[in-house]
């Protein structure tokens, strides 16, 4: 099985004036296509920083990250943007839906930044994604008119609309009640079952248990991994 992600000795240092803060220290792991990985750890342990580096929102201070075998540090901003648009689906704790766009418009947003997709197809593709998360009747609603669970479903539909190979979820159930959380997690794992790769950041042990593997971070270091990390 080929590695979708290979992280080699990833470190990240934040600098604020003369003060240096090491957020990640020498992190290495592999993630294969179709697998799911949970990153857990206490607050401030570096989970979101690691996710943002894998999701191409930030760059590591040192180390190498490979996505689909490509060394990310060698990519231009343009190439990173294309990868983000076509290969990565982001799901955030606070949903990050755009308030002045309706549900369907939010979902079709990634399509608008992909020149391969004709504008005539936006509506059909968007509706399919919306149907897949069970919100076909909410196409014209504004995000603020939906419940938290529904908003996260919309965010999942938006993450899936370009059929990415990697789904990154940053505490996807952090803002939801337990019943809604279960539904959202079920939905996410249904997507994984269809062949997508999932990397999620979570505080919840139950959720981590449902993943194929888990990395536990502590002060930027890998304190434990299940199963043990192989690079």
């Amino acid at each position, binding site marked *: 099985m080929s590695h979708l992600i290979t992280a080699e000795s990833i470190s990240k240092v934040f600098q604020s004036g003369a003060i240096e803060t090491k957020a990640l220290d020498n992190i290495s792991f592999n993630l294969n296509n179709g697998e799911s990985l949970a990153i857990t750890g206490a607050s401030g342990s570096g989970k979101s920083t690691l996710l943002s580096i894998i999701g191409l929102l930030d760059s590591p201070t040192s180390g190498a990250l490979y996505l689909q075998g490509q060394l990310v540090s060698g990519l231009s901003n343009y190439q990173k943007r294309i990868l983000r648009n076509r290969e990565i689906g982001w799901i955030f704790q606070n949903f990050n839906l755009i308030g002045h766009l309706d549900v369907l418009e939010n979902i079709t947003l990634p399509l608008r930044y992909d020149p391969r997709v004709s504008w005539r197809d936006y509506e059909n593709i968007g509706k399919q994604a919306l149907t897949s998360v069970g919100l076909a009747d909410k196409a*014209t609603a504004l995000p603020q008119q939906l419940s938290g669970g529904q908003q996260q479903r919309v965010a999942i539909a938006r993450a899936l609309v370009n059929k990415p190979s990697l789904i990154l979820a940053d505490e996807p159930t952090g803002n939801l009640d337990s019943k809604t959380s279960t539904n959202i997690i079920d939905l996410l794992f249904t997507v994984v079952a269809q062949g997508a790769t999932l990397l999620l950041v979570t505080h919840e042990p139950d959720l981590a248990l449902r993943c194929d593997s888990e990395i536990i971070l502590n002060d930027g270091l890998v304190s434990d991994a299940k199963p043990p990390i192989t690079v």
Partner: protein
Amino acid sequence: MLSHPLLFELATEWRTWKGQWFKYLILLFGFSLLAVLLAMGLRIGELLFIDPPAWVNSDKHKNLYTLSRYHQKVGMHGVSLNTIEGLKGIPGIESIAYIAFRSRSIKHQGTLFDSTEIAYFSESFRNQISLKFPTKEGVAESQLAWVSTRFFEQELKGNPAVIGSTIRITRNPVPLIIAGVLPPELNRLGKNQPDIWVNDKNLRYHTPFVAPPVGSNNPEKEKILNKFLRNAPIYYVIFALEKAIDPAEIQQIVAANFTVDSAMTFSMPGSELRVQQGVVFDPETKQALKNQWLALLALILALSIILTINALTLFGGHIVMHWRSIKTKRILGASQKSFLLSDLWSLALPLIFLTLFSYVLLLLGEKTINFSELYKSFAGNTRFSVSAPIWAASLLLTFVVLYLSKAMQVLNFSEEKLFDRAFGNSKTRSQLLLADLFLVIQLAGGFLIASIAASMALSEWQSQSAVSIDRSVTEVKISYNGDAKIPNSLYSGRFPGLSSIPVGASIPGFQEPLTASIKRAGTKTSVSVNAIYVSENYFDLLAVNKVTWSGSWPNGVIVSRSLASVLAEKEDYSDLEAAPVAVKMLFEKTYPIVGVIDDIPHFGVSQRGDPMVYLPISAAFLNNNMALISKPEHAEALADAANLWAQKNLLNPRISPIESLDEIIRQTDSLRLGFLAATLAVSLLINILIFISISYQIKSRIKMTEHEYGVRMVYGCSASHLILVACRDCFLALLVAVPIATAGLWWLDSRYAQFLDVPLLRVSVLPPVVLITALLILLAATVPIASLLKKSLFGLMRHT
């Protein structure tokens, strides 16, 4: 769902400005105004520096010049034929044409037309102009006359039958045949509005000598006539050169060749020869228009700076409000190109507004300019209109500035880090400095223009209130040929046949004083003054304030306060009482000063300080016009009586319509009042724009630091303290802006106040303007703080 990118961007743009459209519209209105001012500025520049008057044949002659004489007080006037001869020494001269204007009475089919303006043109003049003169076969040009469109329509009632009929010009023994109507472009040449055009051979009948018809055998008379016509300085000359030559060089050659026949000196002291590039019949008007054009350019520059900063802050604030959307879009793969395209699409609707607003403003602007006397004097009947390409170019340029202002802010924000815990707050030091610099520029600009407008308004108000005459008094002017014997009863304020009505008289009219010089006995220096002959009761009728009054009037002269200040050695003018002064007009005569009065605005309110001397009307001589003044209720009766009396006692009298002094003064002041009104309007618009921009800036700064406000509120910060926190940056910027703006005001005032004839800095207006600005800043902060106070504290704290 709107899938098409254009429609999608339009719809989403509309939604993001929800509740803010008024601000956006005001900004667009400002940009529309800028586009229109730019288009009009370009067109006026074209008129001033490129286009010749519509009637000039510029295709035939590329290098045209105007030769005339110029006098500081009288303005442009003609040169003699002898002077024109001097032009022949200029290398590469292609053609010389000249024209003279004279006022005469004419008779047409039994109807007498008084004071008809006649243009006498040389044969070559017709070649210089691009318009065709209708001719009549078999009739010599000297026996033809052409009527202007205005005269044809207004006086001849547009009757086509007049063509081919004859007219007779006073003293001209030969009747002239009307050959046709000239195009409207020839209705006006500079200040001259000729009614009838005739060949210059007819000038021979309008000298002080009686001329026999052309061809009569009287060599002696012909010699005198020719000599007079050669030396009379009445011709305005247009000449064309093969190659352009510096006007100063031509001037030197003409001056060197200048000759005068013996005993034929018509010199006017202080008058000098002047050669001007292009066809210039009214240099004062051209200069006045040029001054206004320069003021317009300064306004365009100021407005474009203010509007660009305004747009940058408005769009910057808008982006701060929507930074999360931008970040999300970037995470989802939006590129800079897609942001730029999105901005372009989203401006489609504003472009429509911009076009509509600017079209309406352009129509208004064109109409205003076409109504303006200054423009009419300059361009005559040529309508002011901005061509579509100039308008489109100005609109495009404005749109580009608007687009760049929007795009720059998006690009600026799209460079932000995608992963940063302090995203949205992570302004760099240079960004913050730039924002503060914009704030200072806006506040300084707003403060400067508001102070100028307030200073001008205050000065105008003070000038108007300082005028103590009764402006309702009316004036009727009578002009006539030759000299008139003034009825003795008028000296004391009674008009023949109207003994019950107090009537004042002056020679000449209220607005047309004569020039004189005055010298106190025993001193050497004389003062150049304006003089007017008035009746005994003139000052009582005007209800003018008498500063000193000996009671000996009219046995002496009255001087205005401004003249008294020059002549007197004591502050209370007591040394002027009965002081003899020599007044020199055509002759010098000594009079005692018998009173000092407040300044009367003969030349408008702002020029009321021009020194004046008032002489008794009994001393007037060689007059050909007089003015009668009365209270408004007696105006009609006086006009009727004056008409009757004039028909009986004067040669060829013409009576003007009744006008109040208020109307006369307002007409004189109209340019300045118009300038004041325009300054107030522009100041208001710019300050509204700045207020909107600053309020939006404060709002976006509050939005950016909502969490900080939340923390302050948790710890019990009061609403007033929050408002002060929100205003802090603006108040600091105001502290910096006020000294900068004051220095700018001082510089502008010292450099341009005299040139514009208005004070630009009055120290007394500065404190109220500072106070109002501070209050407006407080108001701008109060609204967003009030809406912040309505939000839940929990929400504010969570929203990091």
